[in-house]
């Protein structure tokens, strides 16, 4: 089996329409490692991920996965590359019309010659990995947000991808479940040769499992390197991000008085007998 491919972004600018969201990124994501992309909310992490997955055309620059320029690869060759990638979207993006088991089985049914019983074995195994084997027959709208996310992860893993992308896998999960997910990712890294790219806000999980960290902010890439290097950084923005400190303010901001009860349409003080 080929070694897990690395991902290289060369002077990449991503955005929608003509407005850039993150500009001029030169990032080298190492193969076979866990890379975490962190940054404030709305700074373009999901946008970057979608561009790497070739869902949108970048404004400038190029993306290489395992040495292939994804935007100049021919149709069939790119499909091979795509079938080796798995992705978990921020909201799971399960197909609403299919039960959980069929959602997870979908890539296998479309891309392999496996028999139905083999497919069901694989599906059961992957759902067990994320702790959802009891929910196989439910529809996506019957699941909680965290469950949908885990189901999305099971679907991303079902083809045994060489490159795995996860958009905020732990947001919406309880701390135990998040820790378990980190554990699962680590186990998989030990078991398979794969490159994992995780977008996260979860600094604890970054410190436990990341091999390589990319920090986005301010419309550009602020830092890339190992966790140790990041902890040693002196930059003010990075420090406040790492120490979870809100910026200091000189002026108080809670300046509005509360709403006068007399302005409420329903006279609650009288109705509830509170004189």
């Amino acid at each position, binding site marked *: 089996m080929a070694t897990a491919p690395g991902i290289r972004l060369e002077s990449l600018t991503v955005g929608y329409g003509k407005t850039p969201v993150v500009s001029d990124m030169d990032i080298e994501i190492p193969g076979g490692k866990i890379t975490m992309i962190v940054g404030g909310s709305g700074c373009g992490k999901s946008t970057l991920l979608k561009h790497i997955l070739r869902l949108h055309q970048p404004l400038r620059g190029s993306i290489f996965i395992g040495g292939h320029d994804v935007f100049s690869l021919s149709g069939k060759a790119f499909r091979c590359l795509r079938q080796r990638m798995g992705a978990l979207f*921020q909201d799971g993006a399960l197909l609403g019309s299919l039960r959980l088991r069929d959602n997870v089985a979908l890539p296998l049914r479309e891309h392999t010659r496996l028999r139905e019983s083999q497919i069901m074995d694989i599906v059961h195994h992957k759902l067990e990995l994320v702790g959802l084997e009891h929910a196989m027959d439910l529809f996506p709208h019957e699941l909680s947000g965290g469950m949908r996310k885990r189901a999305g992860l099971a679907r991303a893993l079902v083809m045994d991808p060489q490159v795995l992308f996860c958009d905020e896998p732990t947001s919406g999960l309880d701390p135990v479940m998040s820790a378990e997910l980190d554990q699962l990712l680590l186990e998989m890294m030990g078991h398979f040769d794969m490159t994992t790219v995780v977008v996260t806000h979860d600094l604890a999980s970054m410190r436990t499992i990341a091999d390589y960290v990319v920090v986005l902010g301010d419309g550009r890439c602020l830092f890339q390197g190992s966790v140790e290097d990041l902890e040693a950084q002196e930059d003010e923005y990075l420090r406040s991000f790492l120490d979870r400190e809100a910026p200091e303010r000189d002026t108080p901001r809670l300046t509005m008085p509360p709403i006068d009860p007399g302005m409420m349409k329903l006279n609650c003080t009288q109705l509830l007998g509170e004189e």
Partner: protein
Amino acid sequence: MSQATGGFLTPFNALGSVALRFLEELGAMSIFFLDSVRFVFAGWGQFSKSVRQIYFIGVQSVSVIALIGLFTGMVMGMQLYFALSSFGADGFLGTGVALSMVRELAPVLTAIMLTGRAGSAMTAEIGVMRISEQIDALTIMDINPMRYLVAPKMAACIISFPILTAFFNLIAIAGGWLTGVRLLGANAGVYWYRVQASLSWADIEGGFIKALAFAVLVCTICCYEGYFTHLRGRVGPEGVSQSTTSAVVKSCVVILAADYILTSLLW
């Protein structure tokens, strides 16, 4: 753009840009249609998806089509009877009902009814899948959304529209018999004889060609509007509702326009 906006040129400017936008959309829809129709016969996996769509688009519409057909036929039987009997030609009731149904009313009304029942649902379904990233998810799983989503609907429309049109014809001609013969007292034998004798193969064929054309047009417009709902001015739930409205309106206008063109070409 800083065009020379001379007062009297403004209407021409507007007309030109409307025409350009129309042509652009026409081109995009044609490409969309060709892109989906090449997957219609792509293997057994497609077949089972198409069958499910035929159930939704075709089978579940049978009762509505029956109702519409019955009342259309009954009204037609009544109106034609009054009109024809006033100059003693009520023997031609069967001819009138059969020809108006088979050539015009059945294909058009079936298509408009199916636009409302199934077309709007297709737009909404695909639009919701677009805004909730389900289409993106299909794409990154290397499942072509055209093949997975659009092609089965196209196949189902192409199969369902003609069959439901035939069904509409049947019920409507029976409806005409119900009012014209049973209620108002035209001669039953003459009615059925006229129905049979006045319909030529060209009429039946023309009706079916219309039904096929409407199937392709309605399905293309409705799926296209849903598929590109994110490119509208408004995104999110409101965008989907706008897409659905626009799909239904466009489909109905296009059905009537195409009906005129096909009628003038076919007969």
